[in-house]
C-alpha cells in the first residue's frame, strides 16, 4: 500500500489489474504536468478566455436580509460556461489526456452536467468523446442527451443494474478496461481510484483559491463558514481544500437526505452510510449487511450517488468538516427562495447547500460570514421542479 494513495484509511486503488498500469501512468503524467508552467498557462488560458473565470463572489444582500443573521456570499460557479463547476475538471483532465497522447475520452454522467462539460472540453480540444448514461437518466434528461450529441459526443445508454449514475460509472469503467491503451477516463467527481480524488480536487481547487482572494478583498478577512453540496464531493472539495489549514473556518458539506435519512430513500453516504469500497476507493457508501450497494435517491440527479469521495470520509472522521443532510422538500423550498430573493435560479444540487444555509444563517451574528458554493445554475432543473410543484411557483 503506497501511503499517497490514501487519505487516512480512505481511498486506494481497488480496480482490476488491467487498469492498474493506466492509473500509474496517469499518476506519473499528473505529477509531471501539474507544476509544468506550459500546462498551467494553457489551462489558465482556457479557464479565463473560454470558461469565464474567475467567477464572481457575490454578496447576496436579499438573502442575507431575509434570513437575518450571518452575511452570505455566493461563489458563482453557475456562471461558468456549461453552467456548473464540472467544466473546471473536464477541461483540466482532457488537457492532461492530450498531453498523455490519448485523444479518446470516456465519461459517465448522471443528470448530464458532467457529460455536457466533458463533451464540451472534448469538442474544444479536438478529442473523441463517449459518454455513459443510465437509461433512466436518459429518459429524465433527454435535452442534455441532445446537447452532448450536438457537441459531437457519442452517448451510450446503460441498461444494467439500476440504470442510473452508479451503473453508468460501472459501464464507463468496463469500457475503459477494454480501451485503456488509447483512452482516458474523465471521472466526474473526487471519487474513484487514486489518483482521481487528488487530481479532480486539484482541478476544482481554483474555486477555493479564488474565494480566498475575493473574500479578503471584500471583507478583509476569511469567512467563518464554507458550505457546499456533496454528491461525489468535487465542488465541496474544490471550495474547502484551499482552506483546510485555516483551522478556525468551519466547513459544512451538505448531502441529499432524499425522502429522509430514516426512509432508506436518500443519498447521504456520510450521514447514514458505512465504510466500504465503491468504484475503486474505500469510503463511506450505501450498502446492505452483505456489502451489496444500495441504490441512492435524491430529487437532484447530481447528488443521486451511493458513494462519496474518500477525502470527505477522511474529513468526516477527523472532524475537519461537518456533514449535514437536506431533504428533497427542503431543497425545493430553497430553490424557490433563491430564485425569488436574488433572481438566481440555482441547480437543485446547490439548493441543498442553500437549504442548510437557510437553517444556519439565522443562528449566527451579522458580523459572521458564510460562503456558499453555488455549484450550478438551475435551468436544467426547471422542468423537474415545475412538475413537482404542479406548475405552481410559490407566490
Amino acid at each position: 500500500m503506497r501511503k499517497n494513495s490514501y487519505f487516512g484509511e480512505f481511498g486506494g486503488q481497488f480496480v482490476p489489474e488491467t487498469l492498474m498500469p493506466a492509473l500509474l501512468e496517469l499518476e506519473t503524467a499528473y505529477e509531471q504536468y501539474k507544476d509544468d508552467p506550459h500546462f498551467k498557462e494553457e489551462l489558465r488560458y482556457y479557464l479565463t478566455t473560454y470558461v469565464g473565470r474567475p467567477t464572481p463572489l457575490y454578496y447576496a444582500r436579499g438573502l442575507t436580509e431575509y434570513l437575518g443573521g450571518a452575511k452570505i456570499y455566493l461563489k458563482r460557479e453557475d456562471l461558468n460556461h456549461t453552467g456548473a463547476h464540472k467544466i473546471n475538471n473536464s477541461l483540466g483532465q482532457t488537457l492532461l489526456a492530450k498531453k498523455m497522447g490519448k485523444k479518446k475520452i470516456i465519461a459517465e454522467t448522471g443528470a448530464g452536467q458532467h457529460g455536457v462539460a466533458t463533451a464540451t472540453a472534448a469538442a474544444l480540444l479536438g478529442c473523441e468523446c463517449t459518454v455513459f448514461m443510465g437509461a433512466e437518466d436518459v429518459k429524465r434528461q433527454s435535452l442534455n442527451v441532445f446537447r452532448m450529441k450536438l457537441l459531437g459526443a457519442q452517448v451510450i445508454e446503460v441498461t444494467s443494474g439500476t440504470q442510473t449514475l452508479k451503473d453508468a460509472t460501472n459501464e464507463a469503467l468496463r469500457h475503459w478496461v477494454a480501451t485503456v491503451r488509447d483512452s482516458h477516463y474523465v471521472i466526474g467527481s473526487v471519487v474513484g481510484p487514486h489518483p482521481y480524488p487528488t487530481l479532480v480536487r486539484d482541478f476544482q481547487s481554483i474555486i477555493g483559491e479564488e474565494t480566498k482572494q475575493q473574500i479578503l478583498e471584500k471583507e478583509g478577512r476569511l469567512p467563518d463558514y464554507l458550505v457546499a453540496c456533496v454528491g461525489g464531493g468535487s465542488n465541496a472539495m474544490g471550495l474547502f481544500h484551499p482552506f483546510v489549514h485555516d483551522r478556525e473556518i468551519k466547513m459544512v458539506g451538505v448531502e441529499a437526505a432524499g425522502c429522509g435519512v430514516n426512509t432508506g430513500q436518500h443519498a447521504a453516504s456520510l450521514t447514514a452510510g458505512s465504510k466500504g469500497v465503491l468504484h475503486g476507493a474505500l469510503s463511506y457508501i450505501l450498502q446492505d449487511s452483505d456489502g451489496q450497494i444500495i441504490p441512492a435517491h435524491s430529487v437532484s440527479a447530481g447528488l443521486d450517488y451511493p458513494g462519496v469521495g474518500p477525502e470527505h470520509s477522511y474529513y468526516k472522521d477527523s472532524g475537519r468538516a461537518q456533514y449535514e443532510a437536506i431533504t428533497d422538500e427542503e431543497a425545493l423550498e430553497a430553490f424557490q427562495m433563491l430564485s425569488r430573493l436574488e433572481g438566481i435560479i440555482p441547480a437543485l444540487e446547490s439548493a441543498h447547500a442553500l437549504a442548510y444555509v437557510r437553517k444556519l444563517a439565522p443562528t449566527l451574528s451579522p458580523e459572521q460570514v458564510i460562503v456558499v458554493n453555488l455549484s450550478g445554475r438551475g435551468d436544467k432543473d426547471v422542468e423537474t421542479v415545475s412538475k413537482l410543484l404542479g406548475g405552481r411557483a410559490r407566490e
Partner: protein
Amino acid sequence: MSRIAQTFTNLRLKGQKALIPYVSCGDPSLEFTEQLVLKLVEAGADLVELGVPYSDPVADGPTIQKASQRALAGGITLEKIFQLAARLRSRMETPLILMTYYNPIYRFGLERFVSRAQEAGIDGLIVPDLPPEEARILKQITDPAEIDLIFLAAPTSTAERMEKIAALARGFIYCVSVTGVTGSRENIASGLEAFLAQIRSHTDLPLAVGFGIKSPETAGKAAAIADGVIVGSSLIERIEENLPLVKDEPERVINEVCAYLASLKKAMGNTHFAMN
C-alpha cells in the same frame, strides 16, 4: 501442499490441463447451483470457481452481470454460499475457489470472512478488484489460513507488475486473455502466447487462462499453451437460454451445461470426460 497445487501437480504428471468452470452462486437458485457443481465435476471440472454475486461487478460483462442480478433477486447471501461450499466439500475433494469482489469481504470483515471460508473448505480466493497494491492485509490473513490468494495478470501488466504479482501469488496465476471484461466477444489475443511466456519468466506457478474462452476451439487453443482454462460466461449463457426450463426440468439444463463443459474438455486434448 494445498489442494489447488496438488491438483495441478497431478494433472501435470498426467500431461493434462485443468478445466475450471465458474458458476454464479444462486443463479437462479442455490439448489440448482449445488446440483450443477456436482455434475460439472463428474463432467470433467478439475477445480471449481464459486462466483459471489455482486451488485456492481465492474470486471464482468453482461452475462455475469445478469446472472448476478438473478441470484441477488433470488435472495443469495454470503452465509448461504459458505453453507453451499461446506455441503459440496463434504461430498468431493475438488478444489473450490471463491471469486468475489472486495466489498463483500470488507463488509463481512476480513478475518471473519477468511475463517468462514476456511471452515467451509474453500481452497482459494480470487478478488478481481484487488491488485497487489491493496492485497497486503488480506494476504496476511489468507496465508496462515492456508487459503491461496490468487492474483490476476492482464495483457496490460508491465514486467515490473508481473514480478510483483508473481511474488504474492499462490495456487495459480489467473491470466486475463483479453483487454476487456468477462464474456468478451473479442477473440483470444494473438499475443496470448507471448503474454504467457512473459508471465512464465517470472513464476513457476501454474498459469490459467480466462475471460475469452467461449468455444471448444478457444479452450483447445488456450490449453495448448497454458496449464488451465477458466470458463464462465459461455457456461452461464447455456443457463440463461434455458431459464424457463430450470424450475421444472433442472436436470435437462444441467446436462446441457455439462455436455458443453465436456466438449471443452475434449478439445483440450484430455482423455477423461463426460460420464453421462
